[in-house]
């Protein structure tokens, strides 16, 4: 779990620097952690089935589509907002 904690810290730094591709590569360097994170994000998106997420610019995303994109490894910029949030949630869950 300590190694997950370190890796999550590094992923977070890369996301905050806008280096999304590097963040994703870093996350994928531990397949167990990557699968855990993606499964958790998909599960969260499925908690609002058929629902929609929006931002204040009028952009709208379907929760189903965002979950499907994650399943096939198609990451959109908005996924990284959720990835940052996911890191916070995982820290709470695992105490890392």
């Amino acid at each position, binding site marked *: 779990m300590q190694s997950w904690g370190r890796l999550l810290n590094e992923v977070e730094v890369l996301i905050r620097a806008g280096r999304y591709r590097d963040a994703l590569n870093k996350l994928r360097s531990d397949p167990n952690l990557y699968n855990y994170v993606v499964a958790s994000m998909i599960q969260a998106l499925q908690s609002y089935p058929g*629902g929609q997420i929006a931002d*204040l610019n009028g952009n709208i995303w379907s929760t189903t589509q965002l979950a499907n994109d994650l399943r096939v490894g198609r990451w959109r910029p908005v996924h990284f907002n959720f990835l940052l949030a996911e890191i916070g949630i995982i820290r709470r869950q695992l105490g890392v």
Partner: protein
Amino acid sequence: MLFLLPNKKGVEIPSTIMKHIAPAIDPEAVILFGDEATPENARKAILELNPNYIFTTGHGIPCATTLQDNRPFIALGLPEMNDKVCANSLNLDLVKGKVLHIHSCWCGRLLAPVLVQKYGAWAVFAHDDEFLFLLPEDGRTIDIVVAAPFLAEFTVDQVMLSGGTAGEAQKARIEAFERWIKYFYEGEGAKLKAAPLILRILVADKEISKLYGDPTATVTRPRPAREVRLSLPLEVEKGAETSPFILAIPLIFLMSKG
């Protein structure tokens, strides 16, 4: 104090919520809602009333924030960044000495710090990324999972208009996000089916909600905080979009005249 609340193109939910709670936050609030929330009316109101606190919501990019119909309200003249919204500098002369709450995406990246450093705004609350929220399942009814991010965010206005400092408002804002996160993580809200998703949205929104400028800024004398309650569910007050058919009428008329 002045509240600018456009209600089209994605900002009808925050504007509807703020329209309902602003009178409780500040009984003397001047509210420009919907089609009243134009850049021209906003400028006129600021020049006439000289409010020291302005809440505005709308679309946002790093160089500008907009009002009704996505028309630019405050903009840095940076056409290389966006040749429509940031084609010219707009209303930068209005912010000196004022505290602003710019509830728009991305403005924390550039507009907010520049308003403070170059144009003399005393303090600016803004977001440095996209502010996310859930849309109502039926498209029109605001319930607790839809309202939560806004109720956390609008703590800023409650603290500022009770005489708190900007630093206190920012602290209260983050604490409010934390309380809502706890509510959906392990409190009563955890029983709601959308809890896992709204929880993550709240974490994301908390991360991007920042204060720029002087944390000692205040806009009114300290007074007991008023109780602010929002009765839910609440119907979204969405402005009518101009129908493409209506826009086409003059064209059809001209064509029929040959």
